[in-house]
């Protein structure tokens, strides 16, 4: 005797069958999200990296749609590595999921060469008010191929040293505007105590995490990834001294948990007063709060042999060459990167939130200078002096300051940074790590040696 007849037995199965049939029949109607309007409306999908600038763009997209009622914009946000993977896959396999995407200075030259992304110069030429010369030259160059712009910059950054003036003063340390790494190490040691670490440096494995600042250190110590014949150079004294310096600085005066410290962890540490200095992206200063915001000083990226060691990175909007919605996509990209957009962000969301590092005109706006003043100049200068074509003391066959602009670098950089992370964790020596890294890099170098 069945104890309950809480549901008639056939019904759930029947419902299920109906559901399945419905699902199969309605295959064309694919889901609940997105969907444009009817008639002449175009829907474009933008795959965007998750950072605050993009979050602001999402908030302001309504402004775009009210002035361009025939274009609907869907913005899909993903963390950087997921975004990069999805967009790369999409473009390489021509699947057309995205009509516009944020790509970095790493992808643009590579993909432009492969013909994967659209040359935007003709589109720019059609818009009289776009003012491409207003784009900061270093950024513009990094997003160009054969002198044509293949992506338009949305956000740009270099690297700089940020420090707590009060903490350094209390320890009797003054920081020059253009410090050397030795000076920074000495200062870090002096300020370092049991409650406050001298400096925060990224240790989190990843070609875009730990390797970004480390690479700039290698560059300024005189090292390079490959020589002109694509021989890997990781077994050179310059690499050894740079990596040893970086890791020793972390061990002696760096933050605890360095092996897992990325941008966010160091930002937290700096904001809560747990570290006195921080070498990282120029945009970091816009997130300072409390005491950190009131007492921070800014110096240019520390150097050793080579001047101006700051990195160069920009997130930009590009579109696939195979897109069928190029005009709509360009309309949006134009709107999001022209001079007026900065003013829109400033007036609607606050002048501190304007995207840094893209246009010279932004830095001339008095309200922006007032809000971002202290580090705006350092940002602008650092970007201006970062040269992706000549990042090192000796000439190199590749472009890229904090990365090597080749397809294999993502995997190579990740693997090499993992080996360094192991040194930080105490699992191997610098020599062992460099030996493994050299082997990995040599394999990659061979691909380019003919």
């Amino acid at each position: 005797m069945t104890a309950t007849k809480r549901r008639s037995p056939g019904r759930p199965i029947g419902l299920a069958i109906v559901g399945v049939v419905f699902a199969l029949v309605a295959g064309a109607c694919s889901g609940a999200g997105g969907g444009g309007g009817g008639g002449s409306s175009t829907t474009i999908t933008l795959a965007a990296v998750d950072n605050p600038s993009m979050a602001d763009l999402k908030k302001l997209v309504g402004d775009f749609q009210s002035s361009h009622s025939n274009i609907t914009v869907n913005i899909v946000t993903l963390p950087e590595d997921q975004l990069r993977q999805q967009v790369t896959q999409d473009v390489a396999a021509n699947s057309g999921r995205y009509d516009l995407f944020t790509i970095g200075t790493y992808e643009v030259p590579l993909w432009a060469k492969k013909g994967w992304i659209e040359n935007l110069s003709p589109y720019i030429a059609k818009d009289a008010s776009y003012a491409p010369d207003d784009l900061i030259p270093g950024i513009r160059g990094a997003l160009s191929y054969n002198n044509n712009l293949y992506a338009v910059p949305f956000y740009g950054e270099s690297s700089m040293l940020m420090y707590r003036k009060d903490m350094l003063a209390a320890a009797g340390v003054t920081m020059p505007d253009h410090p050397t790494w030795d000076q920074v190490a000495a200062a870090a040691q002096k300020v370092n105590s049991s409650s406050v670490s001298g400096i925060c440096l990224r240790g989190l494995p990843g070609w875009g995490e730990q390797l970004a600042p480390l690479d700039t250190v290698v560059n300024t110590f005189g090292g390079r990834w490959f020589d002109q014949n694509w021989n890997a150079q990781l077994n050179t004294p310059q690499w050894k001294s740079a990596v040893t310096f970086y890791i020793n600085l972390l061990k002696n005066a760096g933050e605890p948990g360095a092996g897992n410290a990325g941008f966010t962890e160091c930002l937290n540490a700096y904001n809560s007063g747990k570290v006195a200095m921080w070498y990282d992206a120029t945009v970091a200063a816009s997130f300072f709060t409390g005491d950190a915001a009131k007492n921070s000083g800014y110096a240019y990226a520390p150097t050793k042999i080579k001047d101006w060691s700051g990195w160069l990175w920009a997130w930009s909007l590009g579109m696939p060459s195979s897109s069928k919605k190029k005009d709509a996509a360009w309309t949006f990209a134009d709107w999001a990167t022209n001079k007026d957009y900065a003013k829109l962000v400033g007036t609607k969301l606050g002048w501190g939130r304007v995207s840094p590092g893209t246009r010279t005109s932004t830095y001339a706006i008095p309200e922006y200078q007032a809000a971002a003043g202290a580090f705006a100049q350092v940002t602008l200068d650092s970007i201006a002096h970062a040269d992706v074509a000549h990042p090192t003391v000796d000439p190199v066959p590749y472009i890229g300051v904090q990365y090597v602009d080749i397809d294999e670098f993502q995997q190579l950089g990740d693997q090499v940074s993992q080996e360094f992370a192991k040194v930080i964790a105490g699992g191997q020596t610098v020599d062992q790590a460099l030996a493994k890294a050299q082997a990995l890099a040599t394999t990659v170098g061979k691909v380019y040696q003919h």
Partner: protein
Amino acid sequence: MSTTAVARRQFPTSKVVWSLVGWLVVFVFFFPVLWMWLEAFKTEPQAASSPPTILFVPTLEEFQQVMSGDFPPFFINSATASILSTLLVLVLGLPAAYALAIRPVKRTRDVLFFFISTRFLPFAASLVPLYLLARDLQLLDNIFALAAIYTTINLPLGVWLLRSFLLEIPPDLFEAARIDGAGFRNELVRVVVPLIAPGIAATSLICLIFSWNEFFYAVNFTSSTAATAPIFLVGFISGRGLFYAKLAAAATLASLPVLLAGWIAQKQLIRGLTMGAVK
């Protein structure tokens, strides 16, 4: 209930002691989730403060930020994919489990092994080929295609689980049904289903949770129209700037529907206990 008579003979403190032990264990397991829910009501600086903020004034600020975007479509898509795939697992899996437990087919062992062998291939190996196939079939960004993939992932699990629960049914119940002249369908429905209600509830819950939380197939096979809750969630992991409170808020929201499903499944599990006693 006869068990209370037995309980009275034991020391009452034993119940208290075991309850305390149980609650301690549950607390340890539940704490990270509780902590995440707490983080959701903090501001960003509070959420990542050093030392951690224990006492604070709750705010809905981060929830507002999370919900200011367009989140319902993500949740609807997740619900569609999860519920559809779970239903499909039950529809396909119950008869299959029956065929492997009650009236076994000849090569049951091989069939069972085949089912689990489909889970041996790591997703990253077959994903690109599958992705290209979906592209060619125009099935990218299609929630029903995603539901079909989830069914595949969960079906071996469902078949094995349901088979085990079916094996627990005493054979005499089937004899009784057969003598009554019941055919296969009646047998299944009148006898089997109510008895393995806890099993069906547990299986459904597990399948729902797996489908709801699945990220990698979702992110590879969808873009905007069919994007699911996990994609909405990771969209708050920012490379520049603090995000823990927002992530916690989004994760709290995302876990509410499955929590509800778990609560419903609880009732079925409790029903099962009642069944057992009446037996």
